[in-house]
């Protein structure tokens, strides 16, 4: 049994890169500013020293060609891990991602593969503003041929990234900035967490909460607060947005009869919609109350912290939503909200909640 340490998501991702690079010389990291003192949010520390500039490839600031170059190299058997500090930067490269990465295997009738991993980070907090805090997973997840993953727990930040690097299909790995801060147990050494679908992170009987990424951490903390007031929430970590396997969600809703989704993107045409729609198709009869979706308010991300309290779905909003669905008493909800507030303490809203940590 490998040793298990408590690491944050960033450290876990770093270990994934380290293990993958050590095992396979074809793996290399490429990106802009991947090895300066910032260490790509702490996910690349020491890799330059260990593997050198050929395997920590500093690239020109040219995301479109960079992506095409990664795909071309991958077609020849290389395994580039392209890393960009914000998902917005990759908006310049979507033609390459959607037309080539996603389709090269299909359109060459299986002859070529594009085993690239594209790590992109979703910004949040500290006034990131309109261009640095978008969470665009649903647009990637629309494309057959791509795999799209959002690790939430530190264990997955490592194991899913290793799995992504070893996968023969292109994988978009979307890392929320705030999961980089959250700690959890992480095994030493090489292991994979399969890219096969969601995981039930907490069992419950009254409501099914399906969450992605940082929202998983919020959902788990919320579920704990709800538990104390007698509401039992099952929390499912979606993990893999494409290929989408909603089997465990459907099973859960069959049990609880209630579904609420909470994710890190805009609601309209977002991830929650796909989940709700599939559940409505697959187990309409099980739904005791209308399903609900929580996500970002339908406008760009404002910078000022005074404008964001209603922008991001809060644990309090989740409590109210679940409360309504299960028909809870105002008093119950008040207690759960108070619990969450205590959890958070005086922390301003534009920094991650340090208490959202494992072991889960």
């Amino acid at each position, binding site marked *: 049994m490998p040793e298990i340490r408590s690491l944050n998501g960033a450290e876990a991702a770093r270990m994934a890169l380290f293990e993958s690079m050590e095992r396979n010389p074809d793996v290399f990291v490429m990106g802009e500013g991947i090895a300066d003192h910032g260490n790509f949010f702490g996910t690349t520390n020491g890799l330059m020293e260990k593997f050198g500039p050929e395997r920590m490839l500093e690239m020109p600031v040219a995301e479109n060609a*960079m992506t*095409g170059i990664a795909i071309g*190299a991958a077609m020849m058997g*290389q395994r580039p891990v392209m890393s960009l500090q914000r998902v917005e930067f990759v908006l310049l490269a979507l033609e390459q991602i959607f037309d080539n990465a996603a389709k090269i295997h299909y*359109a060459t*009738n299986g*002859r070529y593969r594009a*085993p690239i991993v594209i790590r992109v980070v979703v910004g949040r907090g500290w006034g990131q503003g309109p261009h640095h805090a978008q969470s665009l997973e649903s647009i990637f997840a629309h494309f057959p041929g791509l795999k799209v993953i959002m690790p939430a727990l530190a264990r997955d930040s490592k194991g899913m990234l290793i799995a992504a690097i070893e996968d023969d299909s292109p994988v978009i790995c979307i890392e929320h900035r705030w999961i980089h801060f959250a700690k959890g147990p992480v095994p030493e050494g090489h292991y994979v967490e399969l890219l096969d679908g969601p995981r039930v992170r907490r069992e419950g009987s009254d409501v099914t909460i399906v969450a992605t990424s940082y929202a998983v951490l919020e959902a788990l903390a919320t579920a704990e607060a709800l538990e104390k007031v007698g509401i039992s929430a099952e929390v499912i970590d979606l993990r893999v947005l494409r290929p989408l396997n909603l089997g465990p969600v459907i099973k859960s809703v069959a049990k609880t009869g209630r579904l609420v989704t909470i994710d890190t993107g805009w609601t309209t045409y977002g991830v929650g919609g796909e989940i709700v729609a599939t559940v409505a198709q697959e187990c309409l009869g099980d739904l005791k109350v209308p399903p609900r979706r929580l996500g970002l308010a339908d406008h760009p991300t404002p910078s000022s912290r005074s404008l964001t309290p209603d922008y991001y779905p809060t644990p309090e909003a989740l409590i109210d939503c679940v409360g309504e669905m299960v028909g809870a008493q105002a008093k119950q909800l008040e207690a759960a909200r108070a619990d969450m507030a205590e959890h958070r303490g005086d922390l301003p809203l534009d920094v991650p909640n340090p208490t959202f940590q494992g072991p889960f």
Partner: protein
Amino acid sequence: MEKRVTQIDDQTLLRLHRDMLRIRLVEEAIAERYGEQEMRCPVHLSDGQEGIAAGACLALRKTDKIVSTHRSHGHYLAKQGSLKAMLCEIYGRAPGCVGGRGGSMHLLDDEAGVLACLPIVGTSVPLGVGVAYAAKRTGEDTVVMVFLGDAVMEEGVFHESANFAALHSLPVVFVCENNNLSFYTSLEVRQPDRPMTDIAKAHTITIKELDGNDAAAVFEAASGAVTQARKGGGPSFLMCNTRRWREHCGPRYDYELGQMTEREFEALRTDCPVARLDAQLRKAGLLDDVGEETLRAELGREISQAFEFACNAPFPELKTAGDHVYA
């Protein structure tokens, strides 16, 4: 454009002639049969431009690779991609080079080194550069030739790719087929008046501008560029001036659409890369009527057999339509 006398050996000249003629005859056959509506995909024919394809590809080894565009038949054939697989692809048949999934705009012949011909303008350029980068990483001496049209010079991705290729001295030869047109829009409406080679030069890429209808000149320049690339000397950019004869997409000649007069068309057609080398070969005593007849007959046979094969080949099975989405 200056006409030039080359020192290329006879066999090579004959080969260039043959390769060009083969492309010409294939494109003509496609144009002729397109009206049957059995080739049910867009086709961008390249007659008039064969000098570049033949000259550039002959400078490559079999293990070298090319990437190309929507107008790729010539490149594919000059790099010795399978004619049958290409026609089957255009006919949407199972033995097509990508099983009928791509049509004319997605050709590939792995064994021949035809890696990816793709219809989004500029999209294959960074792929080619990435392939060259992989070769450099793994220490292979593969050279990658990237075919592009004059419109690609307007796309940002060309510049990004050129910058990277130059920065890492990659074994890449950019071959720009300047036919002065994007769709039917001429160059001066799209770019300021200057040699396009300046752009590549600004990226420190070795440049050469040439008459693309002179296959021997293209071969010579490409050979130099390929040698430089293989030796680690970095990328080159060959700007080859030419004209296409037919409509942007489809079988008709441009004049039939009113995009030019028939007289203008006849004038531009006098500068035919095939006829030019033909005349040169005859003058040098390397070709005569009999030789040409024999060659045409041989190529004609190959081509009709390939069409025959394609027209009778099975369609891909419907149940395979969803295969290979994930590796």
